[in-house]
């Protein structure tokens, strides 16, 4: 219904749509664009894993144990990145591993973000005993080294991919809570929130419609950066045997299973490690670009 008005408006000096403006700022950071491209490629690969992977991830080829990658002597185009100790194709396992890492990473970030933002919002608005209880328990969680805390949680729940994901959610939670609370407290003091109260807005409306939309920028950035931390932590837990259990094609688990062959067949550990590195780097680059593009202080 706004179409007619918008149409008249879009003439002379109409400022660009927020999304267009965002893209203009984001584009200036070449690293961020590269990161975005890599993330999109890997996502596409993960979604299409069943189609593009040359072999099934669990298929064991007894005739090709520890076969080197194609460009080395003894390599063949049948297994481009070589095979592992029981003859599984490493490329296929990495492609299916992207599925595991990305979906679990997404799950972890979504859960931590939703719960963390909710807690931060409540803490920022209550400013009393409830605030103290929430923030001090977050401080306790931050005081412990994150991987150690995750190990403790998995030790209690038992090793599995889902429990590892849950542990990583708990580890990431305090960052989201603190970030949201800080943003809420800054925004809450502004005149537009007071104006909303004067026109009769209740607590629910103030929290979700007035204040929250103005706090999303730092949370989005933290979400992107948290994604890379989640992938890394999950790989670490997998490596320690506390995350995904074999034969799941998870990158960290692949690393730990192949550790004993590092002298004889370097490709077995190198390629899963590179996959972790590339994904984490791409998300970090993208997160940095997002921060620059979404930070109003850096604009104009």
């Amino acid at each position, binding site marked *: 219904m*706004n179409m007619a*008005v*918008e149409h*008249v*408006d879009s003439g002379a000096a109409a*400022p660009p749509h*927020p999304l267009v403006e965002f893209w203009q700022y984001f584009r200036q950071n070449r690293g961020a664009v590269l990161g975005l491209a890599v993330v999109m490629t890997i996502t596409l690969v993960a979604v299409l894993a069943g189609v593009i992977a040359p072999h099934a991830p669990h298929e064991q080829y007894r005739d090709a144990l520890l076969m080197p990658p194609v460009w080395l002597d003894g390599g063949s185009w049948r297994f481009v990145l070589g095979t592992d100790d029981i003859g599984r194709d490493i490329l296929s396992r990495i492609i299916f591993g992207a599925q595991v890492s990305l979906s679990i990473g997404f799950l972890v970030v979504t859960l931590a973000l939703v719960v963390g933002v909710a807690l931060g919002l409540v803490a920022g608005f209550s400013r009393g005993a409830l605030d103290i209880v929430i923030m001090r328990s977050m401080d306790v969680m931050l005081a412990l080294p994150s991987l150690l805390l995750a190990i403790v949680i998995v030790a209690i729940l038992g090793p599995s991919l889902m429990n590892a994901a849950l542990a990583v959610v708990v580890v990431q939670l305090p960052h989201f809570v603190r970030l949201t609370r800080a943003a809420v407290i800054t925004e809450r003091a*502004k*005149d*537009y929130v*007071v*104006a*909303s*109260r*004067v*026109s*009769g*807005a*209740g607590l629910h*409306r103030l929290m979700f419609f*007035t204040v929250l*939309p*103005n706090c999303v920028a730092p949370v989005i950035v933290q979400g992107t950066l948290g994604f890379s931390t989640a992938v890394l932590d999950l790989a670490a837990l997998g490596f320690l045997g506390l995350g995904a259990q074999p034969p799941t094609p998870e990158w960290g688990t692949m690393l730990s299973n192949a550790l004993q062959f590092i002298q004889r067949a370097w490709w077995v550990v190198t390629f899963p490690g590179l996959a972790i590195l590339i994904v984490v780097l791409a998300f970090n680059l993208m997160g940095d670009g997002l921060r620059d593009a979404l930070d*109003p202080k850096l604009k104009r």
Partner: protein
Amino acid sequence: MFTCHRLCRYYPVRDTLFGAHKTIKALDGVSFDLHAGRTLAVVGESGCGKSTLARLVTMIEPPTAGRFSLVGDGNSKSMRKQVQIVFQDAYGSLNPRKKVGSILEEPLVINTRMQRAERRDEAIGMLTKVGLRPEHYSRYPHMFSGGQRQRIAVARALMLRPKIVVADEPVSALDISIQAQILNLLMALQDELNLAYLFISHDLSVVERICDEVLVMYLGRAVEQGEKRTIFQKPAHPYTQALLTSTPFVEPGRRAQRVLLKGEPPSPMNVPSGCAFHQRCPIVKEQCRREQPELREVAGRWVACHFAEAALRGN
């Protein structure tokens, strides 16, 4: 129409973790009436309690003591709709994530059962009333200049058809030329809608132009209040005299001998005994250090000074 009786607002503070509790008397017993179609200006230095007064009247904060009431309306829920506010900072007072249309419609969404189309008509009607164009409805606040933003803020304050508008230094953040436009807009709207304004300002030339009555505050208390003409012509309190002579004028004939004040206003955490103004007063006597003066009627206005008559004669 709107009566405030001895409004007080105290804030408890501690200067150190284990220090004793102290009380800041941000507002200490201020009374006034507002009338439809008239403007009461509240003037004073920073920290004198002007903005606290605005926050109490708009029910952002509850008063520590005292009461206010709208004649014929005792219900605070419906009273909230009758009192709206315009802030000083037109940048911070509009939600940057919302379009002008939804900023203006928010009070209607909360307080009325209007349909979407009705709300839209109301908002567009109000936009034209404050001198903006209907196509501004679907723009974001950052696309406007300071003066235009203040017009949007005025429009939002009027969406619920309030009887009283509190204007907390509405023009002091704007350019001089834009100030005049906003003041003219406020006065035109007052005539059209019969509004009562509580106009908070430290700019006496603005106050002289727009208001009917004046309330001069010093450290949370009223020192002089009454009709603008009476006070601007013959101020009775030494503080008012100092304030008025501090306004610069272009015409040499209007320049008065400046009454210079010594020192700074004392901290509200540490209000002097007796008359709060005695340390800076040019005509201070022994009585001022001991006794706090109450408001009393002198020559057609209310003034809180033991020696108001002497001050009037000396002026």
